[in-house]
Each structure stands twice: as C-alpha cells, then as structure tokens.
C-alpha cells in the first residue's frame, strides 16, 4: 500500500484506465464465458457420443411408454401398466404430500418448541434446548433410518398397539379413523375455505375502518357465521354424511380408516422433528430480536399482554422469522427426497427407478431438477409475497 505514491505519471495512466478497465472487463467476460461454453460443449459432445454408442435415444418420448414399476403408496389411481408420465405425476403428488403436511406440522411444533425455549420454567426451557440440540446435530438420513427401524420393530397388525381407541400402530404403519370423502363433503370443505378467505378480507376491511375512526369492531360474530354457519348450511342442504369409519382388523390387515404406510410415517416423523428443531431456533431468535423496550412501551400505554404479543411483538418478529423460515421450508422439501432410502416412492425415487429401467439419465435428472426448481420457486414466491404483506401492514 505504501508503494502507491500518487504522482504525475500515475494520473496520466488513470485517465486511460477507464477505457482500459472496460476492455479488461470485456476480455474477462469473453474468457470466462468462452471457457464455460467450451466445457459444456465438450461434455455435451461426449454425452452425445456415449449415448449413440449405448443406443439410448435422447428426448422425452420414453414418458409415453409403459412404466411397469409398482408404486405401493399412492393417492392417485395408478397401475404398473400406466405410462411413465403417470408414474412421475404420482411421484410428484407423493413428494408434495409429505412436504406440505411436513411443513405445516414442523411449523407448529417448531414454534411451540421455540416458545418453550424462552419459557421462564427452567425444566421446560432445558428440555426444549435438549430437543433442539439433539436433533440438529445428527444427520437426517440417520434419523430417518432410525425411525424406520423402530417402525419395523413394532408388533404385527394382530398385536397392534392402540394408544387411543380407533388408532392402531403396527408394522403396517399408523391407521387412523377417517371420514369417507364424497362430493358433498368436498363442497363443505370448499365452503370452509371460502369462509376463511371472506373472513380474511373482512378482517382487513374492519381493521382499516378501525384505523380510521378508532372504534373497536369484533370479528368473532362474523367468524362464527362464516366458518361454522355457512359450512353447516351447505352440509345440511347437500345432505353430506360425516360418519367416521373406524379401522378394523380383518385377517392380517386393517379395513377402513386412513393408513399411513410405515415408509411415509417414518419419513414424515423424521422430516418434522428435524426441521422443527431448526424452526424452533428461528422462532426463538426472532422473538429475542425484539427489543425489551417494545414490551415496556406497550405496557406503558396500558395495553394488555396478549394484545402486545399479537399486535406489536409478533408482527415485528415475523419479519425476522420469515426469510430463514422460507429456506427451512425449501430444505424440508428437498430433504423429502431422502425417501428413496426407506423406499417411499417420491418423485426422486421414481426418477431413479426410471433411470435404471430406461437409461435415460439426462432426462430423468432434468425432470427432478424441473420439479424441485418449480416447487422452490413456488415456495419462494409465496413467502416473498407474505413477507411483503407483513412489511406493508407494519409500514
């Protein structure tokens, strides 16, 4: 640094340097892009050569062929006679099934553990800390294998454990009572969703009016009408049936009820517990990031504690929490691909089978990438939208 003494010759060089810098920049870009293109081109030509030697045709035409692979645990109708494209769709649904439910459960459990870590009860906060530390520091795959082995070690269906009446836990998985979903039931569920959306819009409207004139307007009568009244009316007018079917043991297996296969159940437990440990840390640090002064100031205004938490601390904490939470959701979704280790057929596992059956490696990997990039993009977009919303509300 001491060698750079500003002098006359140096200044003359600096006048040049703008052009020179641009030139250097251009040269660098051409060089780097050239190298990248050369490498990709070389790899691609090798691949084309190898594929022609191995008589593998490129392209996605194979998707129309018969898959011939059995898929045990599906929500969609599927038989091995269906084409590959159907198998992939079943795989995507399986991925989403574990990811979406996993995200919801991990958020709930993680938030509770995060709050428990801040509890003034020593035992509770220590236990939460142990939970977080233990689960974070052991590889997810190991935890998944562990849960799966435990699941396999459960008694056979005949000797299934019954923690609650109607719930069976055996090496066939978890069997729960369920409600058969007919068309009428779907309409009622749609009514609940519509009610939620209407309630959300109404809440915004009421809050805006409250901001304007300062009068408190209660939301709960509307909530009651929209979330209980409307669905009940729809259910009654369509004559929907809500009888719960209890699973029964017949022979060696269960009849009726909702069965979570051991593979699915192990994967779900592993993903939820593992991710909830990370979410707990995010929630804890988010709440701790809010300065004490915010609590004190709100208390000085005479606001009640619950109100302070709901309207002052949480909205601010959410801003800190949302971005790292988004990456946890993405991680959970990507981690769901570990399913292949226990034989739950998610999209990665199906792509892997396809790859082994057809040799279409490039296409299979490209499909995995496409699916996950789309899911990642979807989650990011949603969370960014939500992030922008809470930022706006708080000005």
């Amino acid at each position: 640094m001491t060698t750079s003494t500003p002098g006359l010759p140096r200044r003359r060089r600096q006048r040049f340097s703008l052009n020179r810098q641009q030139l250097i920049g251009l040269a660098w870009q051409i060089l780097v892009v050239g190298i990248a293109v050369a490498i990709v081109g070389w790899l691609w030509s090798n691949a084309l050569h190898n594929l022609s030697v191995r008589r593998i045709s490129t392209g996605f035409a194979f998707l129309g062929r018969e898959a011939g692979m059995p898929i045990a645990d599906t929500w969609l109708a599927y038989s091995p006679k269906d084409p590959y494209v159907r198998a992939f769709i079943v795989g995507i649904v399986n991925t989403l099934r574990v990811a979406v439910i996993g995200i919801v459960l991990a958020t709930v459990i993680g938030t509770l553990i995060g709050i428990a870590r801040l509890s003034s009860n020593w035992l509770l906060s220590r236990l939460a800390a142990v939970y977080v530390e233990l689960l974070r520091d052991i590889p997810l795959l190991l935890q998944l294998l562990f849960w799966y082995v435990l699941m396999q070690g459960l008694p056979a269906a005949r000797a299934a454990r019954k923690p609650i009446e109607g719930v069976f836990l055996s090496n066939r998985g978890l069997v729960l009572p369920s409600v058969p979903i007919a068309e009428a039931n779907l309409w009622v569920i749609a009514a609940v969703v519509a009610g939620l959306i209407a309630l959300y819009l109404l809440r915004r409207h009421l809050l805006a009016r409250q901001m304007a004139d300062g009068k408190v307007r209660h939301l709960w009568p509307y909530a009651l009408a929209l979330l209980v009244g409307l669905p009940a009316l729809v259910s009654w007018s369509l004559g929907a049936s809500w009888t719960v079917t209890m699973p029964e043991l017949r022979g060696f297996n269960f009849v009726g009820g909702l069965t979570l296969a051991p593979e699915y159940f192990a994967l779900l437990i592993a993903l939820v517990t593992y991710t909830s440990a990370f979410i707990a840390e995010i929630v804890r640090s988010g709440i701790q990031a809010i300065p004490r002064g915010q609590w004190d100031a709100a208390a000085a205004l005479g606001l009640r504690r619950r109100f302070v938490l709901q309207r002052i601390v949480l909205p601010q904490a959410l801003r800190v929490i949302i971005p790292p939470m988004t990456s946890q959701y993405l991680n959970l979704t990507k981690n769901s691909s570990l399913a292949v280790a226990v034989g739950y057929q998610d999209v990665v596992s199906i792509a892997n089978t396809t790859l082994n059956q057809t040799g279409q490696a490039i296409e299979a990997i490209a499909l995995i990438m496409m699916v996950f990039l789309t899911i990642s993009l979807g989650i990011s977009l949603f969370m960014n939208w939500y992030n922008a919303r809470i930022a706006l509300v708080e000005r």
Partner: protein
Amino acid sequence: MTSITDAPESPLPFNGARSRKTPAHHVIRWLRANLFASITSSVISLVLIALLARAFVSLVQWGYWNAIWSVPSDQTGACRSIRGLGACWAVIPEKYRFILFGTYPFSEQWRPALATLVFIALFYVSSRRRWWRKELVAVWAAALILIGVLMWGGIAGLTYVSQDRWGGLPVTLILATFGLAFGFPLGIVVALGRRSKLPAIRSLCVLYVELIRGVPLISLLFMASVMFPLFMPDGVNIDKLLRAQIAFVLYAGAYLAEVIRGGLQAIPRGQHDAADALGLSYWKKNGLIILPQAIRHVIPPLVNTFIAFFKDTSLVLIIGIFDLLTTAKTSIIDPAWQPFSVEVYIFVGLIYFVFCFAMSRYSRQLEAQAHPN
C-alpha cells in the same frame, strides 16, 4: 428504572430471611423462581417431571439394566430373548472395527485410525484464532498429503490400499474436509463473481448457485454416480469416491458462496472506495481489504454451513459409498445381528453428534465473542 407495577412481583418475604441463608433455602428459592413461579408453571413442571421420570426409568431399564454387553461370537440367542426389553450392546464390540473403518485391511487399520486423528488435530488447529494465518494453508496442505499417504500407502513401506477398500469414519471425514477445502475457494470466487459488475460473469455465477441450491443433494449425487460417466470421453473412468467428492465440492461451493456473499454485502462502500483510491487492483482490493473483513463477519454462519455439510456427507449411502453411515447399515446385514440396528444407529449417531456438537458449541462461542451482550 423500577416501576410501581414491578413491586408486588419482588418476593419481599425473602428479603427478611436473607440473614439466615442456608443451602436448602437457596434450593427452595431457586425451585420457586424457576419451576413453581405460578400455577401454570407448577403444573407444567409436575407433568414434565412425571414424564421425564417415566422415560428415564424405561431408558435405564432398556439401555443398562436389561442390556447385554457381550456374547460369545455370533451367539446372539441371549440378545434375541430380551429383544424389546433390553439393548444388545454386544453388537458394538463385535462390529465397531467394521463400522469405523469399513473393509480396510484389518491389520492395517491403524492407518485410517491415525488419519482420523490427523483430521481431528487439523480441525482443532484451524479453530484456534491465533492460528488464523497464512501458514495455516501450508499446514492444511501438509496434513491432507499426510492423510493421503496414510490411506493409500504404497510408499515408505506401507502397502498400497485402493480406494474401494476405504470405508467408515475416514471416508466421512475425507468427503467433508476435501469438499470444504476445495469448495471454499470456489465459493469465494463465485461470491465475488455474483457481485461483479460484469453481467456475463454475474449471470453465470447466479445460474450455478441457484441450480445447485434449487435441487436436492441426492440428485447431484445421482448425477455424479450415473451421469458423470456419460459426460466423459471413452476410456476415462473416474473412481466413484472421487466423483462423489466432485459433486460435494460443487455443492459446498454454491452454499458457501451464498454465505460469503452475505459477508461481502456487509462491507460498507467506503472500504471499496478507499481501496480504489489507493489504486489497488481488483484482486488486491478483494484479497487484502474486502475478503478478510467479509469472511471474518460470517464465521459463525460458515461454521453452521460446515455442520450441515458434515451431516450431508451421509447421503452417499444412497449411491453406495462406504461412509460411516453406510458401514453402520451394512454391519447389521449379518443375519446374526440384524435385529440390533437401533443400538448400532445410536452408536453412530453419537459419533456424528460429538463432531457436530463440538462445531456448534464453537460457533456459538465465536458468536458470543463477536456480539458481547
């Protein structure tokens, strides 16, 4: 700053009792403040104590009281008869050599053991602040060469051991350490590239980072194990472990680049301006001024990335590379020991836990140093 509302909460009776403080009083006071502060808190405490006591009793019964610690070789009848009631820890002394070192020649297993110790010493040295100097790079190079010599052999009177016989803990450490050692410089270059003013370079770096981070690690490993040979010219055959290692370097590079980029963003503009004003070149500016500060900023998140990365090496199980988790899973294929996988997983989980817990403790310590209070 004591407010009036605080007054009722301060336990006045205790102030009077301060004159005759005994240990028992301390305990009672502590219990009152931390476990039985309110009715809700008391209920929670009692429920938790009951649950914990039950869990503890059944754990001790299973893991210690009813457990079997050794059996004559492969005679697992005694273990089978207590299955579900007690642990069969006998599986650990029977299998630990295979779990730790895989199929490495049995008489030569002191070599991977020594390599593991070299790794641990290397990590320890790198974690000490007073060793954060240029010489550390030389230490790393020397240590990695030493590990290579120990594992491969072929010189200095050591018999040659090919890579397909490596396994267990050293493979996990190799994948993690080499992945980081090569991924780190890659990450730095990509992070700089992503903040570069040159659009072509910037978009290349964004493409690389987002593609790698957007897909699961498993698909990268599949690529390395299945697709990589497709992309190579005829006759070029790269070993499976090396292919996985390349995948890990690319993976680590993308994640580390994002962490380092965060550090670069935290450096105020003035530092760039000052460096420019001194007439430093781009590389000197970044190498001497910007990067040292940026990396110092992000050491705690970097350590967290290291932890995640260390755990992620276990995914090679899926492509059949013999790391610690794969040897553990393989060791219980043996029909005699098959039912005792839980014990083996607990053993291996403990090894992973020790490494990760040490790192996370260290990261927290660094964070506490960086932000006192």
